[in-house]
């Protein structure tokens, strides 16, 4: 089954994490292939966000490893993982509210693309960073809002801005934590179109509660329950998996 999906871009091996005596992640081994949109689902408290935090480097695992393109990145801190190509968005909108949309994204571009020698150049003259930022904004569908103060954008636009920020770091892997959270129908459609487009040239790990959406867009799914992998496979396989139905879907519907 692994071979069918090609070589893994991002991979975890026996990842565990506990808080105090409570295990939030148990022995999770997942693979994320290039160009794949991989959704992680599970009931509340299943350890989805913990998993994202372990992948992005915000949390260190109790045991197990994280590999990116074959390289062990388990010990790398968050900012170093970004430079290796792992970018994430947050479940609760996490942007620089007092800055313009452009500046939000420009900062993200700067993190990865500014040379140390240019640090003391005037920020307004860093054309290359601005154009990268504009590209990322355009990709996320915000090209006409670049001058707006981020905090004044609509909720949906702020979610798009989150994604634009991750894009500006030229990631290989996108970790998207509930990008649809709190969105209306129309905004949701916009984002799902965006995700589909993005999945062509990025590996995406998606956490999402909206099941209709997930089953529609995902190439591959992992079901987490109580921190452990209950099942994985294509959406169709997961939909018909008896254990999943029992443990999760049945409970939801």
């Amino acid at each position: 089954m692994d071979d069918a999906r090609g070589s893994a871009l991002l991979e975890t091996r026996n990842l565990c994490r506990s808080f105090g005596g409570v295990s939030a992640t148990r022995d999770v081994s997942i693979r994320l292939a290039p160009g794949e949109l991989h959704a992680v689902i599970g009931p509340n408290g299943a350890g989805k966000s913990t998993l994202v935090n372990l992948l992005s480097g915000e949390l260190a695992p109790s045991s197990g490893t994280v590999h990116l393109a074959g390289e062990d990145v388990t010990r790398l801190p968050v900012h170093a993982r970004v430079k290796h190509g792992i970018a994430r968005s947050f479940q609760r909108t996490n942007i620089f509210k007092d800055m313009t949309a452009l500046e939000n994204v420009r900062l993200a571009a700067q993190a990865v693309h500014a040379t140390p020698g240019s640090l003391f150049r005037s920020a307004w003259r860093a054309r290359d960073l601005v154009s990268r930022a504009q590209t990322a904004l355009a990709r996320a569908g915000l090209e006409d809002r670049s001058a707006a103060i981020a905090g004044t954008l609509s909720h949906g636009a702020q979610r798009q801005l989150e994604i634009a920020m991750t894009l500006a770091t030229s990631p290989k892997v996108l970790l998207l934590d509930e990008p649809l959270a709190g969105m209306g129908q129309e905004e949701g459609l916009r984002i799902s179109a965006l995700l589909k487009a993005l999945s062509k040239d990025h590996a995406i790990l998606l956490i999402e509660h909206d099941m209709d959406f997930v089953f529609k867009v995902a190439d591959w799914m992992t079901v987490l329950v109580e921190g452990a992998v209950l099942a994985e496979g294509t959406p169709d396989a997961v939909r018909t998996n008896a254990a999943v139905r029992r443990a999760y879907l049945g409970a939801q519907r």
Partner: protein
Amino acid sequence: MNEQTRLLPHSRLGWLLLAALLACLVAAPHFVSIYHTELITTAMIAAMLALSLQLLVGGTGLVSLGHGAFYGLAAYVVYLISPEAAARPIWQTLPAAMLVAGLAALLVGSLSLRTKGFFFLMVTLAFGQMIFFVFHDTKLGGGTDGAYLGKPLIQAFGASLDLPRRQRPLGPYYVALIQLTLMYVGLALLMRSLFGRILEGIRANEHRMRAIGFDTYRYKLTTFVIAGMLAGASGHMWAMHRGFVNPELISWHKSAEALLMILLGGLGSLAGPIVGALAYTALGEFSQLVTERKLLVEGLVILAVVLVLPRGLTGLARRRKAAELGPDG
């Protein structure tokens, strides 16, 4: 309008006011007494200290209670490297003072920046007191009584500013003014640079900065060291001006005073600390004339500022302007 740098004036009027302040300071010695000239020198030195701390507080969102230590340390460096009864040229004393202050900031910063919030406050305070005790409890710099420099003449390249006694205060005055101006310009450029944008990002949301790939610890440490060195420049000037060092220069009350100047002047601008330092010095001089209970006046003024004027004096000007221009101003 698009990319404003937060700590700099947002309008032409702001820059004009700054220029007017500079012009006043340039001209002041010709209009006021020797005593008041020296008083303004003291205020400008305090302004440099507050300005250097503003890089941390207003610029990066780091509230340090150990900043005064680098200031005092630098003053002691001038004392320690000055030969008895002779002056060392300023191109030796200034870099030496800044270097030592910077190294101390590197050491203190590398440890204390591992912590956040209250911990950072307490740890910087504790390390600052440690430096205080080094000079307070050892004979290194005259112990509790302090010590004074034989000849704190400002001297460069063999030529010293040998003015007649009446005009002698002019030397330190203009040197301090030049340093203050350079420091302002330097910090303004820094805040406008890519580096400054990082600091602004850290101040606004450090967690997010790490998540988009910034090694925030490194940038904070760099900033901490720069601020420490600038505090060192200020302390150096104090030693040059007053020719006297005492452990109290290092104590955490000095840091608290500098924070107060920042708050008094306004947290949101680089000019704030300068205005705050001038106002604070004037307040000290004034309360000295009217009451014995100077601490009472100081305490009440702080309370008033914290409770009523959280954006400081420059914030007052800004607020008025915003009101004139309407909500989008």
